[in-house]
């Protein structure tokens, strides 16, 4: 069972590139460097003041392995402590947890975490098929789209969730992205447009699914003493939890019950003293690769009861201005550079706590939650707070 760190650790700065479908103007190292410089500027710090760099992506997407080695010029890790963490879709949150653990250990005072992906340079679905078991799954698997589609049918069947309710998630999140200067897709959609978009794999349509993006994100974790000097409103890390599940799709219920998220949020809530998430959390950046996922995982995170994901979106509670907005940044549905995507959830949650959200700022944020999700249905959960 994870605990709250005895040493207080905070996120004090973030930096992101402006995420796009293609960034042919920069190579990978230059793209990483952009996010890193923006993050240092946000903190008003120099690279010399950073004790270590934790970096990662989904390596086979670009076909250039060992990012921790060749990114040194752009990442600033020359002759510095450094480490790579790569965990598929959860890479970004695993990196964040890595940054947290480094500083919480008391061994480092300031650590920068960097997540990135240049998705346009490889083939995303082909890359995801690498993750499938070679003997049992590769021949049938069709990447993320197929996996979500195959379990969405059972989710709709069991609880009567409709494609229309799912479409509302796309409308909400993409509209939220209009307020986010970094978001890749900024779209003002109607439910009808989502329902009429091209069918990819039943019931997932083009507008139900996240894009693929080129982008990078960087964050700085600091010890209590340093955090208070760097930033007037640090985002304190209250809880960080990870869960993994069994290897094969058929071992799980997938969208019917993401038990890794259920289990991770249960423990995170316990650590953070959260009894009723919808009431006790002010904003959530929930990793949602497709519309149906946001509905189902709201149930897993206990924002509502089992099967009530559709009712929740219908209620408006998760809209901007609602009781607990989900994904004011636009979410994964608006930006998906996989190595960065989960970190962007944490960065955006931190931005909310720090009050740096600009047009996408939710008023009076005390507690924010960020989740990460990865291919074999793993989950990460991080809870941030304005107070220690």
């Amino acid at each position, binding site marked *: 069972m994870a605990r709250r760190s005895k040493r207080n650790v905070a996120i004090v700065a973030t930096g992101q590139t402006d995420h796009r479908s293609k960034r042919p103007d920069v190579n990978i190292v230059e793209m990483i460097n952009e996010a890193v410089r923006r993050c240092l500027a946000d903190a008003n710090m120099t690279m010399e003041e950073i004790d270590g760099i934790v970096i990662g992506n989904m390596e086979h997407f670009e*076909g250039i392995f060992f990012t921790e080695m060749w990114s040194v010029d752009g990442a600033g890790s020359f002759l510095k402590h450094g480490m790579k963490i790569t965990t598929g879709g959860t890479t970004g949150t695993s990196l964040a947890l890595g940054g947290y653990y480094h500083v919480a250990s008391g061994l480092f005072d300031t650590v920068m975490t960097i997540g990135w992906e240049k998705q346009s340079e490889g*083939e995303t679905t082909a890359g995801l098929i690498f993750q499938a078991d*070679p003997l049992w799954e590769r021949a*049938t698997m*069709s990447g993320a789209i*197929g996996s979500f589609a195959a379990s969405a049918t*059972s989710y709709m069947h069991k609880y009567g969730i409709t494609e229309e309710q799912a479409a509302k998630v796309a409308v909400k999140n993409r509209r939220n992205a209009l307020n986010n200067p970094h978001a890749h897709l900024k779209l003002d959609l109607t439910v009808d447009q989502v329902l009429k978009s091209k069918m990819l*794999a039943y019931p997932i349509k083009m507008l139900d699914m996240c894009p693929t993006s080129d982008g990078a994100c960087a964050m700085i974790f600091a010890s209590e003493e340093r955090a208070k000097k760097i930033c007037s409103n640090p985002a304190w890390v209250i809880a960080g939890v990870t869960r993994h599940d069994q*290897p094969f799709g058929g*071992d799980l219920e997938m969208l019917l019950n993401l038990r890794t998220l259920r289990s991770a949020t249960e423990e995170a809530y316990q650590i953070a003293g959260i009894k009723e998430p919808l009431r006790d959390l002010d904003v959530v950046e929930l990793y949602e690769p497709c519309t149906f996922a946001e509905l189902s995982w709201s149930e897993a995170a206990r924002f509502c009861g089992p099967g009530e994901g559709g009712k929740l979106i219908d209620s408006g509670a998760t809209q901007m201005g609602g009781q607990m907005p989900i994904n004011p940044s636009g979410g994964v549905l608006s930006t998906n550079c996989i190595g960065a995507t989960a970190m962007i959830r944490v960065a955006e949650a931190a931005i909310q706590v720090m009050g740096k959200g600009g047009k996408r700022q939710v008023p009076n944020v005390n507690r924010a939650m960020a989740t990460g999700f990865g291919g074999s249905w793993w989950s990460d959960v991080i809870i941030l707070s304005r107070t220690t």
Partner: protein
Amino acid sequence: MSEKGGSLLVAEFEANFPYDYSAGRFASYFFKQLKDKKQITGIRCPKCQRVFVPPRPACGYCFVGNTEWVPLGDEGTLWAYTIVQFPFLDPMTGQERPIPYGYGYIELEGASTRLQHFVTASDLNKLRIGMRMKAVFREERKGDLADILYFKAIEK
């Protein structure tokens, strides 16, 4: 390698990754039963009694060794499915995988987990959760999962 023009160059290259996967003893046994007897086999955990397919050496729940092989028959219920309709590159062939195709999860009689495989019916659009499905085998079996070509809906 080829480079496109303009002032920003792009290097295009194709990477080929050859692998030789050891299937392991448990998968090897499964594939032998499939090849020799057209039999789909699960394996039981002695502690929680769950029957796993695909088979594996240890139970993830109990962390003990699985011991008893359980023949599962060739029929089951369709638990979930999708019809894949978007074109994508299949890294196994380097070509686009032919679409549309159906794949899903079959609950075989006696198994605690579901087997992922291709699914079909007289018309893909007829697929429904809860349908009874039957395995269709390859004529000349080789000892891999493709010895089951697909599961087909049993329609009246």
